[in-house]
């Protein structure tokens, strides 16, 4: 089979499966189910082979068995201690045994231990800089608007000043931060009227945040639809079938 025909057939298969998956919009049907299962099977098969060829083979099997070059000469020695990992891994499957399922807790415990150990570093490296960056000036030191790149003012001077438009923006940020944090005061009953108002504001500001997240999600989903349409009309029909440039 020549390469051009192979690409044309693979693109045609892509179009058929895309239409098949979209067909669920009409109603649940066997064609959709077929495409869905085809995708699941392909993804599972690919993952199994990918994990072995791309990962386990190099970081476990080669280290255990050693490697040779094309001429069969030894490149690196094997370390049989890596074989000890195999029974530990297999212990995970003991979860299916009523009698020996305690063994599954050994690998699970190792994973949990690694994960828990990492979390100390993860927590501080994630939130430490954010807390520091959260301390923003809310009083301006210069004019209202930040001068543009074509204003002729030295960029370092612009960066050193707090313009009032920035100060207002920083104040909104600080207010949002404090009010949203106050919304999560669950440990005791809030009776203070001012804190209650701030608390309610926090709830509304959270809703605005969720709205923004929902908006970006909708944009992303639309982009995926547009990409599929481009694939069908341009990549398959125009370029592959009609050899457009």
């Amino acid at each position: 089979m020549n390469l051009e025909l192979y690409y044309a057939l693979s693109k045609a298969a892509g179009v058929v499966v895309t239409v098949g998956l979209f067909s669920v919009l009409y109603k649940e049907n066997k064609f959709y189910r077929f495409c869905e299962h085809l995708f699941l099977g392909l993804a599972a098969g690919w993952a199994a082979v990918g994990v072995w060829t791309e990962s386990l083979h190099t970081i476990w099997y080669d280290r255990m068995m050693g490697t040779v070059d094309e001429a069969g000469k030894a490149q690196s020695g094997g370390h049989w201690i890596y074989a000890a990992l195999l029974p530990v891994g297999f212990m995970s499957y003991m979860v299916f045994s009523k009698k020996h399922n305690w063994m599954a807790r050994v690998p699970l415990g190792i994973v949990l231990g690694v994960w828990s150990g990492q979390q100390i570093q993860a927590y501080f490296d994630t939130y430490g800089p954010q807390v520091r960056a959260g301390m923003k000036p809310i009083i301006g030191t210069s004019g209202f608007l930040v001068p543009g790149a074509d204003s002729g003012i030295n960029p370092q001077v612009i960066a050193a000043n707090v313009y009032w438009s920035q100060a207002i923006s920083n104040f909104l940020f600080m207010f949002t931060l404090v009010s949203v944090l106050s919304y999560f005061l669950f440990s005791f009953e809030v009776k203070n009227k001012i804190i209650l108002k701030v608390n309610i504001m926090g709830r509304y500001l959270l809703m605005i945040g969720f709205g923004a997240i929902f908006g970006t999600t909708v944009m992303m989903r639309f982009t995926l639809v547009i990409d599929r349409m481009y694939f069908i009309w341009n990549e398959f029909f125009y370029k592959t079938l009609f050899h457009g440039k």
Partner: protein
Amino acid sequence: MKIKTIPKYTVYLLLVLAASIPLFFDIKMPNKPVDSSAATFKSLMTLEKGDTVLLGTDWTGSTRGESKAELIAILRILMRKEVKFAMWSSADAQSPRCAQDVITEVNAMMKKEGSREYKQWEDWVQAGFYPNSDVAINNVGQDVKKMFSPKRGTDSTGKLRSVMESPVLEKIQKIEDFKLVIDVTASKTSDFHVQFISSHKVPMIFAVTGVMVPETDVYYNSGQIAGFLGGLKGVYDVEVMMDKGLNVPDKDGKIEVASTKVTDQIAGFPGKDNTGSGSKYYPTLHFALALMIVLVVIGNVEMAMARKGAKNS
């Protein structure tokens, strides 16, 4: 109360039309790049010939519309500036294949514009796929040499050797030796990069999907990353900056593409073909969004009228 004016199949048909017809036209959109895109562009354009970057690709076909477009834009800049890159993945076993297909595609673009094609081993290496993203990214931060050493690639003479011996990685001893760490991702790997690599003081940029923009903005605003491309808007921003530069005045002294946060003057690649999926999809996205807004308004008006009618009856 039953509302049934527009059948759902009509809505689907309208969406397909709105997402298809504008693709056939070359529509120019006014655009001001967001700060995060401008900062990403600066990070990429300040790289020099011969620099090495670590390029994480953690996306698959399910986010092709955004992630592939982002990777193409990034690769175009890296290849035009002759920056070497080591590519690796930790999110999905399909990711390396998806990224390698994109490299082939971008190489064809480079050939078409008369630039040098990138060769595996000499200019870029595939450093592999490693499951368990958090542990893998932590290991790369701790000891990148030990992490990538077992992965072998074919050198220019056809011999299988460790990728750490390649011209791309031979000078890399630790994560700080990379000039830039990039992650094109549709998953949590961006979080793990912040958790385990940000403390190493190596500049990082992300290219994320639209869904991830709000959470990634936090990392950018707190200075944990140098910049990020957010979904299709990020792609369109960078394509426009590649074409017209950033803060570059034209003959009349007017700056067409400006940023108040990134004040450096950065020339793009004028005269070269910088259009990609961003330029093609971004106008179409506006038509689809406009349709959605119209339908939401119609739906709400219908509901209000139906309620009023029910009350009156």
